[in-house]
Protein backbone atom coordinates (compact mmCIF):
# COMPACT_ATOMS: atom_id res chain seq x y z
CA UNK A 1 0.00 0.00 0.00
CA UNK A 2 1.44 3.31 -1.06
CA UNK A 3 1.82 6.20 1.36
CA UNK A 4 -0.67 8.65 -0.23
CA UNK A 5 -1.98 10.40 2.84
CA UNK A 6 0.13 11.25 5.88
CA UNK A 7 -0.80 9.76 9.23
CA UNK A 8 -1.59 13.13 10.78
CA UNK A 9 -3.21 14.60 7.65
CA UNK A 10 -0.40 17.04 6.78
CA UNK A 11 0.63 17.93 3.23
CA UNK A 12 3.84 16.28 2.05
CA UNK A 13 5.80 19.51 2.29
CA UNK A 14 4.25 20.73 5.51
CA UNK A 15 6.03 20.77 8.86
CA UNK A 16 4.34 20.09 12.16
CA UNK A 17 3.06 23.15 14.04
CA UNK A 18 6.03 25.09 15.44
CA UNK A 19 6.28 27.14 18.59
CA UNK A 20 9.42 29.08 19.53
CA UNK A 21 10.39 31.27 22.47
CA UNK A 22 13.64 32.70 23.83
CA UNK A 23 14.78 33.62 27.33
CA UNK A 24 12.97 30.73 28.99
CA UNK A 25 15.75 29.73 31.42
CA UNK A 26 16.54 32.58 33.82
CA UNK A 27 19.90 31.40 35.13
CA UNK A 28 21.45 30.86 31.72
CA UNK A 29 23.13 33.51 29.57
CA UNK A 30 20.79 32.66 26.70
CA UNK A 31 18.06 30.10 26.24
CA UNK A 32 15.37 28.96 23.86
CA UNK A 33 12.37 26.68 23.59
CA UNK A 34 11.51 25.04 20.30
CA UNK A 35 8.47 22.85 19.83
CA UNK A 36 7.75 20.97 16.65
CA UNK A 37 4.57 18.91 16.88
CA UNK A 38 5.11 16.69 19.89
CA UNK A 39 8.89 17.13 19.95
CA UNK A 40 10.06 19.69 22.50
CA UNK A 41 13.62 20.98 22.85
CA UNK A 42 15.09 23.38 25.38
CA UNK A 43 18.53 24.87 24.83
CA UNK A 44 20.56 26.77 27.41
CA UNK A 45 23.78 28.64 26.63
CA UNK A 46 26.41 29.44 29.23
CA UNK A 47 29.45 31.49 28.48
CA UNK A 48 31.85 32.41 27.06
CA UNK A 49 33.48 31.20 30.26
CA UNK A 50 36.82 29.74 31.23
CA UNK A 51 37.44 26.14 30.28
CA UNK A 52 39.08 23.52 32.46
CA UNK A 53 41.13 21.30 32.36
CA UNK A 54 43.56 23.77 30.92
CA UNK A 55 44.76 21.57 28.06
CA UNK A 56 41.37 22.00 26.41
CA UNK A 57 42.00 25.73 26.02
CA UNK A 58 42.72 27.10 22.58
CA UNK A 59 44.67 30.37 22.65
CA UNK A 60 43.60 31.27 19.11
CA UNK A 61 39.88 30.64 19.34
CA UNK A 62 37.00 30.03 21.70
CA UNK A 63 35.46 26.59 21.86
CA UNK A 64 31.88 25.53 21.26
CA UNK A 65 30.73 22.57 23.32
CA UNK A 66 27.30 20.97 22.88
CA UNK A 67 25.45 18.48 25.05
CA UNK A 68 22.36 16.55 24.01
CA UNK A 69 20.13 14.84 26.52
CA UNK A 70 16.83 13.01 26.28
CA UNK A 71 15.04 13.13 29.61
CA UNK A 72 14.15 9.76 31.18
CA UNK A 73 10.40 10.20 30.63
CA UNK A 74 10.71 11.77 27.17
CA UNK A 75 10.11 8.84 24.86
CA UNK A 76 6.88 6.99 24.12
CA UNK A 77 8.48 3.64 24.78
CA UNK A 78 10.74 2.60 27.61
CA UNK A 79 12.41 4.88 30.11
CA UNK A 80 15.53 6.49 28.62
CA UNK A 81 18.54 5.86 30.79
CA UNK A 82 19.90 9.27 31.80
CA UNK A 83 23.38 10.42 31.02
CA UNK A 84 25.48 10.37 27.89
CA UNK A 85 25.33 7.31 25.69
CA UNK A 86 26.75 6.53 22.27
CA UNK A 87 23.80 8.09 20.44
CA UNK A 88 23.71 11.25 22.57
CA UNK A 89 27.44 11.82 22.08
CA UNK A 90 27.11 11.48 18.32
CA UNK A 91 24.18 13.88 18.15
CA UNK A 92 26.00 16.36 20.37
CA UNK A 93 28.92 16.18 17.95
CA UNK A 94 26.84 16.74 14.80
CA UNK A 95 24.98 19.60 16.52
CA UNK A 96 28.31 21.23 17.31
CA UNK A 97 29.43 20.83 13.71
CA UNK A 98 26.14 22.18 12.40
CA UNK A 99 26.47 25.35 14.48
CA UNK A 100 30.22 25.93 14.25
CA UNK A 101 30.21 27.56 10.76
CA UNK A 102 28.06 30.46 11.98
CA UNK A 103 29.51 31.02 15.45
CA UNK A 104 32.48 33.39 15.64
CA UNK A 105 34.48 32.94 18.83
CA UNK A 106 37.76 34.53 17.73
CA UNK A 107 37.13 37.33 20.25
CA UNK A 108 37.10 34.83 23.11
CA UNK A 109 40.41 32.93 23.18
CA UNK A 110 40.87 30.24 25.87
CA UNK A 111 37.17 30.18 26.66
CA UNK A 112 34.21 27.94 26.00
CA UNK A 113 30.55 28.39 25.13
CA UNK A 114 28.46 25.55 26.48
CA UNK A 115 25.16 24.62 24.86
CA UNK A 116 22.91 22.23 26.76
CA UNK A 117 20.01 20.72 24.81
CA UNK A 118 17.35 18.99 26.86
CA UNK A 119 14.40 17.08 25.42
CA UNK A 120 11.46 16.63 27.77
CA UNK A 121 9.22 15.11 25.09
CA UNK A 122 10.18 13.43 21.83
CA UNK A 123 8.43 12.31 18.67
CA UNK A 124 11.27 12.04 16.10
CA UNK A 125 13.30 14.94 14.73
CA UNK A 126 14.98 15.68 18.05
CA UNK A 127 18.37 16.64 16.67
CA UNK A 128 16.68 19.09 14.29
CA UNK A 129 14.60 20.64 17.05
CA UNK A 130 17.74 20.75 19.20
CA UNK A 131 19.75 22.59 16.54
CA UNK A 132 16.93 25.12 15.99
CA UNK A 133 16.71 25.77 19.73
CA UNK A 134 20.49 25.98 20.12
CA UNK A 135 20.81 28.49 17.28
CA UNK A 136 18.20 30.74 18.90
CA UNK A 137 19.75 30.36 22.35
CA UNK A 138 23.20 31.33 21.03
CA UNK A 139 21.77 34.48 19.44
CA UNK A 140 19.88 35.25 22.66
CA UNK A 141 23.14 34.94 24.61
CA UNK A 142 24.68 37.64 22.43
CA UNK A 143 27.34 35.37 20.94
CA UNK A 144 28.77 36.86 17.71
CA UNK A 145 27.18 34.93 14.85
CA UNK A 146 27.42 35.36 11.10
CA UNK A 147 24.05 33.79 10.55
CA UNK A 148 21.45 31.51 12.07
CA UNK A 149 20.82 27.82 11.49
CA UNK A 150 17.45 26.22 10.83
CA UNK A 151 17.04 22.50 10.76
CA UNK A 152 14.43 20.02 9.60
CA UNK A 153 14.33 16.36 8.64
CA UNK A 154 13.18 15.28 5.22
CA UNK A 155 12.78 11.82 3.85
CA UNK A 156 10.89 9.26 1.89
CA UNK A 157 8.19 7.01 3.21
CA UNK A 158 7.35 4.28 0.71
CA UNK A 159 7.39 6.39 -2.47
CA UNK A 160 6.42 9.78 -1.11
CA UNK A 161 8.99 12.49 -0.39
CA UNK A 162 8.00 14.27 2.82
CA UNK A 163 9.18 16.99 5.18
CA UNK A 164 9.50 16.68 8.96
CA UNK A 165 8.92 13.00 9.70
CA UNK A 166 7.24 12.13 12.97
CA UNK A 167 7.80 8.86 14.81
CA UNK A 168 4.95 7.00 13.11
CA UNK A 169 6.48 7.84 9.72
CA UNK A 170 10.03 7.09 10.78
CA UNK A 171 8.94 3.61 11.87
CA UNK A 172 6.59 2.98 8.92
CA UNK A 173 6.43 -0.76 8.34
CA UNK A 174 4.65 -1.22 5.00
CA UNK A 175 7.51 0.09 2.88
CA UNK A 176 11.02 1.50 2.86
CA UNK A 177 11.83 4.64 4.83
CA UNK A 178 14.66 7.14 4.37
CA UNK A 179 15.21 9.79 7.03
CA UNK A 180 17.52 12.74 6.30
CA UNK A 181 18.11 15.32 9.04
CA UNK A 182 19.40 18.54 7.48
CA UNK A 183 20.51 21.90 8.83
CA UNK A 184 20.62 24.92 6.55
CA UNK A 185 22.48 28.18 7.16
CA UNK A 186 19.67 30.61 6.52
CA UNK A 187 21.10 33.48 4.48
CA UNK A 188 23.57 31.62 2.30
CA UNK A 189 21.59 28.40 1.97
CA UNK A 190 24.66 26.31 2.81
CA UNK A 191 24.14 22.88 4.34
CA UNK A 192 25.77 22.32 7.72
CA UNK A 193 24.19 18.99 8.62
CA UNK A 194 23.29 16.14 6.31
CA UNK A 195 22.83 12.64 7.62
CA UNK A 196 20.87 9.79 6.16
CA UNK A 197 19.25 6.68 7.48
CA UNK A 198 17.76 4.32 4.86
CA UNK A 199 17.89 4.13 1.09
CA UNK A 200 17.26 6.91 -1.41
CA UNK A 201 18.05 7.53 -5.08
CA UNK A 202 20.30 10.41 -6.12
CA UNK A 203 17.40 12.30 -7.79
CA UNK A 204 15.18 11.91 -4.75
CA UNK A 205 17.94 13.18 -2.48
CA UNK A 206 18.27 16.35 -4.58
CA UNK A 207 14.52 16.89 -4.45
CA UNK A 208 14.46 16.22 -0.73
CA UNK A 209 17.17 18.80 -0.07
CA UNK A 210 15.21 21.39 -2.06
CA UNK A 211 12.19 20.62 0.12
CA UNK A 212 14.34 20.99 3.22
CA UNK A 213 15.58 24.40 2.07
CA UNK A 214 12.01 25.64 1.62
CA UNK A 215 10.93 24.33 5.02
CA UNK A 216 14.04 25.80 6.68
CA UNK A 217 13.35 29.27 5.34
CA UNK A 218 9.94 29.11 7.04
CA UNK A 219 11.50 27.88 10.29
CA UNK A 220 14.12 30.63 10.06
CA UNK A 221 11.38 33.26 10.02
CA UNK A 222 9.77 31.75 13.12
CA UNK A 223 13.15 31.72 14.91
CA UNK A 224 13.87 35.35 14.10
CA UNK A 225 10.37 36.48 15.06
CA UNK A 226 10.77 34.74 18.42
CA UNK A 227 14.06 36.55 19.06
CA UNK A 228 12.54 39.94 18.18
CA UNK A 229 9.47 39.28 20.26
CA UNK A 230 11.56 39.24 23.43
CA UNK A 231 12.36 42.92 22.93
CA UNK A 232 8.95 44.05 21.71
CA UNK A 233 7.35 47.09 23.31
CA UNK A 234 4.89 45.93 25.90
CA UNK A 235 1.67 47.92 25.99
CA UNK A 236 0.80 48.81 29.54
Amino acid at each position, binding site marked *: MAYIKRNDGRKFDETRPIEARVGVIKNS*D*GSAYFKMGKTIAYAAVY*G*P*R*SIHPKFLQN*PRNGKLRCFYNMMPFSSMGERVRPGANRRAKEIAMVTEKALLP*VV*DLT*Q*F*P*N*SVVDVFIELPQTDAGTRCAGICAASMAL*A*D*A*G*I*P*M*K*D*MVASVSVGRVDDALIVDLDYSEESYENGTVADIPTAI*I*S*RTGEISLLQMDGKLSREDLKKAIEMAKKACSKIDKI*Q*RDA*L*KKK*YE*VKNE
Partner: protein
Amino acid sequence: MGKLLVEDKTIVTPGEELAEGMDFLPAEGTFRDKDKIIASGLGLVSINGRLIKTISMAGKYIPKKGDTIIAKVTDILMSGWILDINSSYSAVLSVKEARDFIRRDADLTRYYDIDDYIVTKIVMVTSQRLVDASMKGPGLRKLIGGRIIKVNSNKVPRIIGKGGSMVSMIKNATGCSIIVGQNGIVWIQGLPKNEIIVVKTIRKIEQEAHISGLTERIKAFLEKGTNKKIVVEKVE
Protein backbone atom coordinates in the same frame (compact mmCIF):
# COMPACT_ATOMS: atom_id res chain seq x y z
CA MET B 1 23.74 54.46 -4.83
CA GLY B 2 23.30 52.12 -1.90
CA LYS B 3 20.06 51.27 -0.26
CA LEU B 4 19.22 50.79 3.41
CA LEU B 5 17.23 47.64 4.08
CA VAL B 6 16.33 48.35 7.71
CA GLU B 7 15.29 51.41 9.66
CA ASP B 8 17.37 53.02 12.39
CA LYS B 9 16.73 51.66 15.92
CA THR B 10 15.16 48.39 14.86
CA ILE B 11 16.14 45.07 16.38
CA VAL B 12 17.97 42.73 14.05
CA THR B 13 18.98 39.08 14.31
CA PRO B 14 22.29 37.51 13.23
CA GLY B 15 22.63 37.26 9.45
CA GLU B 16 20.04 39.89 8.66
CA GLU B 17 20.88 42.13 5.69
CA LEU B 18 21.14 45.76 6.76
CA ALA B 19 22.18 47.64 3.63
CA GLU B 20 23.09 47.20 0.00
CA GLY B 21 25.85 48.94 -1.90
CA MET B 22 29.45 49.93 -1.32
CA ASP B 23 28.77 53.46 0.01
CA PHE B 24 27.82 52.07 3.42
CA LEU B 25 30.53 51.02 5.84
CA PRO B 26 30.29 48.14 8.31
CA ALA B 27 31.14 49.09 11.91
CA GLU B 28 30.86 47.21 15.21
CA GLY B 29 28.51 44.20 15.14
CA THR B 30 28.30 44.01 11.36
CA PHE B 31 30.37 42.67 8.47
CA ARG B 32 30.43 42.97 4.71
CA ASP B 33 29.59 40.13 2.34
CA LYS B 34 30.14 41.25 -1.27
CA ASP B 35 28.04 44.41 -1.59
CA LYS B 36 25.81 43.76 1.42
CA ILE B 37 26.19 44.67 5.06
CA ILE B 38 25.11 41.93 7.43
CA ALA B 39 24.40 41.93 11.18
CA SER B 40 26.71 39.66 13.15
CA GLY B 41 24.65 39.42 16.30
CA LEU B 42 21.38 40.24 17.97
CA GLY B 43 21.22 44.00 18.42
CA LEU B 44 19.77 47.42 17.82
CA VAL B 45 20.68 49.04 14.49
CA SER B 46 22.36 52.41 14.71
CA ILE B 47 22.96 54.34 11.50
CA ASN B 48 25.38 57.22 11.61
CA GLY B 49 25.82 58.73 8.17
CA ARG B 50 27.47 55.99 6.12
CA LEU B 51 28.41 53.93 9.15
CA ILE B 52 26.12 51.10 10.15
CA LYS B 53 26.57 49.31 13.46
CA THR B 54 24.52 47.18 15.81
CA ILE B 55 24.46 47.72 19.55
CA SER B 56 24.33 44.33 21.20
CA MET B 57 21.47 43.58 23.57
CA ALA B 58 23.03 40.65 25.38
CA GLY B 59 26.36 39.02 26.00
CA LYS B 60 28.99 39.03 28.66
CA TYR B 61 31.10 42.02 29.62
CA ILE B 62 34.21 42.38 27.47
CA PRO B 63 37.00 44.03 29.53
CA LYS B 64 38.18 47.34 28.12
CA LYS B 65 41.10 49.52 29.14
CA GLY B 66 40.04 52.46 31.27
CA ASP B 67 36.76 50.99 32.50
CA THR B 68 35.87 51.44 36.15
CA ILE B 69 34.36 48.22 37.37
CA ILE B 70 33.26 46.47 40.54
CA ALA B 71 35.11 43.22 41.12
CA LYS B 72 35.14 40.43 43.66
CA VAL B 73 38.36 39.02 45.07
CA THR B 74 38.41 35.28 44.36
CA ASP B 75 41.98 34.29 45.19
CA ILE B 76 45.20 35.67 46.59
CA LEU B 77 48.55 35.23 44.85
CA MET B 78 52.12 35.71 46.01
CA SER B 79 52.08 39.28 44.75
CA GLY B 80 48.49 40.22 44.10
CA TRP B 81 44.84 39.30 43.94
CA ILE B 82 42.69 37.49 41.38
CA LEU B 83 39.45 39.29 40.66
CA ASP B 84 36.14 38.04 39.31
CA ILE B 85 35.06 40.82 36.95
CA ASN B 86 31.73 39.31 35.80
CA SER B 87 33.25 38.51 32.43
CA SER B 88 34.60 35.46 30.60
CA TYR B 89 38.01 36.29 31.99
CA SER B 90 39.42 37.12 35.42
CA ALA B 91 41.65 40.09 36.25
CA VAL B 92 44.80 40.42 38.32
CA LEU B 93 45.44 43.24 40.78
CA SER B 94 49.12 43.39 41.57
CA VAL B 95 50.42 44.67 44.95
CA LYS B 96 52.26 47.38 43.05
CA GLU B 97 48.90 48.69 41.86
CA ALA B 98 47.40 48.79 45.37
CA ARG B 99 46.66 52.14 47.02
CA ASP B 100 49.67 52.22 49.32
CA PHE B 101 53.03 50.54 49.48
CA ILE B 102 52.80 46.93 50.63
CA ARG B 103 55.82 45.12 52.03
CA ARG B 104 56.85 41.88 50.38
CA ASP B 105 56.12 39.77 53.47
CA ALA B 106 52.81 41.45 54.32
CA ASP B 107 49.60 39.51 54.82
CA LEU B 108 47.58 40.45 51.74
CA THR B 109 44.24 39.47 53.31
CA ARG B 110 44.60 42.53 55.55
CA TYR B 111 44.14 44.72 52.49
CA TYR B 112 41.64 42.80 50.37
CA ASP B 113 40.36 39.45 51.57
CA ILE B 114 38.67 36.72 49.54
CA ASP B 115 35.01 37.62 48.75
CA ASP B 116 35.61 41.35 49.24
CA TYR B 117 34.14 43.64 46.62
CA ILE B 118 36.31 46.46 45.31
CA VAL B 119 35.89 49.34 42.88
CA THR B 120 38.81 49.11 40.52
CA LYS B 121 40.01 50.28 37.16
CA ILE B 122 41.20 48.22 34.20
CA VAL B 123 44.64 49.41 33.11
CA MET B 124 45.53 46.84 30.50
CA VAL B 125 43.94 44.10 28.37
CA THR B 126 46.10 41.90 26.14
CA SER B 127 45.15 40.09 22.93
CA GLN B 128 44.78 36.91 24.96
CA ARG B 129 42.43 38.76 27.29
CA LEU B 130 44.75 38.90 30.27
CA VAL B 131 43.42 41.76 32.38
CA ASP B 132 45.36 44.01 34.75
CA ALA B 133 43.54 46.13 37.32
CA SER B 134 44.65 49.06 39.46
CA MET B 135 43.48 50.78 42.63
CA LYS B 136 45.32 54.02 41.91
CA GLY B 137 42.80 56.71 41.13
CA PRO B 138 39.96 58.71 42.64
CA GLY B 139 37.04 56.73 44.00
CA LEU B 140 38.76 53.34 43.76
CA ARG B 141 38.29 51.53 47.05
CA LYS B 142 37.03 48.52 48.94
CA LEU B 143 33.24 48.38 49.33
CA ILE B 144 31.90 47.89 52.84
CA GLY B 145 28.21 47.24 53.50
CA GLY B 146 25.42 47.89 51.03
CA ARG B 147 24.17 45.41 48.50
CA ILE B 148 25.39 44.13 45.14
CA ILE B 149 23.23 43.38 42.12
CA LYS B 150 24.23 42.13 38.69
CA VAL B 151 22.76 43.62 35.53
CA ASN B 152 23.27 43.09 31.81
CA SER B 153 26.52 44.95 31.08
CA ASN B 154 25.15 46.13 27.72
CA LYS B 155 22.54 48.21 29.57
CA VAL B 156 25.04 50.02 31.82
CA PRO B 157 25.14 53.18 29.64
CA ARG B 158 21.37 53.50 30.00
CA ILE B 159 21.48 53.01 33.78
CA ILE B 160 24.08 55.76 34.04
CA GLY B 161 22.31 57.97 31.50
CA LYS B 162 23.64 60.93 29.54
CA GLY B 163 26.35 62.53 31.69
CA GLY B 164 25.21 60.45 34.64
CA SER B 165 21.70 61.96 34.58
CA MET B 166 19.79 58.72 35.18
CA VAL B 167 21.86 57.47 38.10
CA SER B 168 21.89 60.88 39.78
CA MET B 169 18.11 61.06 39.44
CA ILE B 170 17.84 57.73 41.29
CA LYS B 171 20.36 58.91 43.90
CA ASN B 172 18.44 62.13 44.54
CA ALA B 173 15.07 60.40 44.72
CA THR B 174 16.12 57.66 47.13
CA GLY B 175 19.11 59.11 48.98
CA CYS B 176 21.15 55.96 48.34
CA SER B 177 24.78 55.87 47.29
CA ILE B 178 25.10 53.96 44.04
CA ILE B 179 28.18 52.82 42.15
CA VAL B 180 27.62 51.36 38.68
CA GLY B 181 30.52 49.30 37.37
CA GLN B 182 30.98 49.09 33.59
CA ASN B 183 30.95 45.32 33.99
CA GLY B 184 27.33 45.28 35.12
CA ILE B 185 27.83 45.02 38.87
CA VAL B 186 26.00 47.69 40.82
CA TRP B 187 26.61 48.58 44.47
CA ILE B 188 23.80 50.24 46.42
CA GLN B 189 23.88 51.55 49.98
CA GLY B 190 21.15 53.37 51.85
CA LEU B 191 18.04 52.73 53.88
CA PRO B 192 16.86 49.15 53.23
CA LYS B 193 13.48 50.24 51.89
CA ASN B 194 15.13 52.73 49.55
CA GLU B 195 17.65 50.12 48.42
CA ILE B 196 14.73 47.97 47.30
CA ILE B 197 13.29 50.85 45.26
CA VAL B 198 16.68 51.32 43.60
CA VAL B 199 16.90 47.63 42.72
CA LYS B 200 13.41 47.67 41.22
CA THR B 201 14.18 50.83 39.25
CA ILE B 202 17.40 49.39 37.84
CA ARG B 203 15.63 46.19 36.83
CA LYS B 204 13.01 48.28 35.03
CA ILE B 205 15.69 50.27 33.17
CA GLU B 206 17.38 47.01 32.20
CA GLN B 207 14.15 45.65 30.72
CA GLU B 208 13.04 48.77 28.90
CA ALA B 209 16.38 50.31 27.95
CA HIS B 210 15.78 50.09 24.20
CA ILE B 211 12.32 51.70 24.27
CA SER B 212 12.25 55.47 23.81
CA GLY B 213 10.95 57.79 26.53
CA LEU B 214 12.88 55.92 29.21
CA THR B 215 13.69 58.88 31.46
CA GLU B 216 10.04 59.94 31.71
CA ARG B 217 8.92 56.45 32.61
CA ILE B 218 11.63 55.99 35.22
CA LYS B 219 10.81 59.39 36.71
CA ALA B 220 7.14 58.40 37.06
CA PHE B 221 8.16 55.05 38.52
CA LEU B 222 10.41 56.70 41.11
CA GLU B 223 7.77 59.27 42.05
CA LYS B 224 5.31 56.47 42.64
CA GLY B 225 7.84 54.50 44.68
CA THR B 226 9.06 57.33 46.89
CA ASN B 227 5.91 59.52 46.96
CA LYS B 228 8.07 62.54 46.18
CA LYS B 229 8.10 64.96 43.30
CA ILE B 230 11.26 64.71 41.24
CA VAL B 231 12.83 67.58 39.36
CA VAL B 232 14.95 66.35 36.47
CA GLU B 233 18.08 68.40 36.00
CA LYS B 234 18.76 69.30 32.43
CA VAL B 235 22.16 68.16 31.21
CA GLU B 236 23.75 70.48 28.69
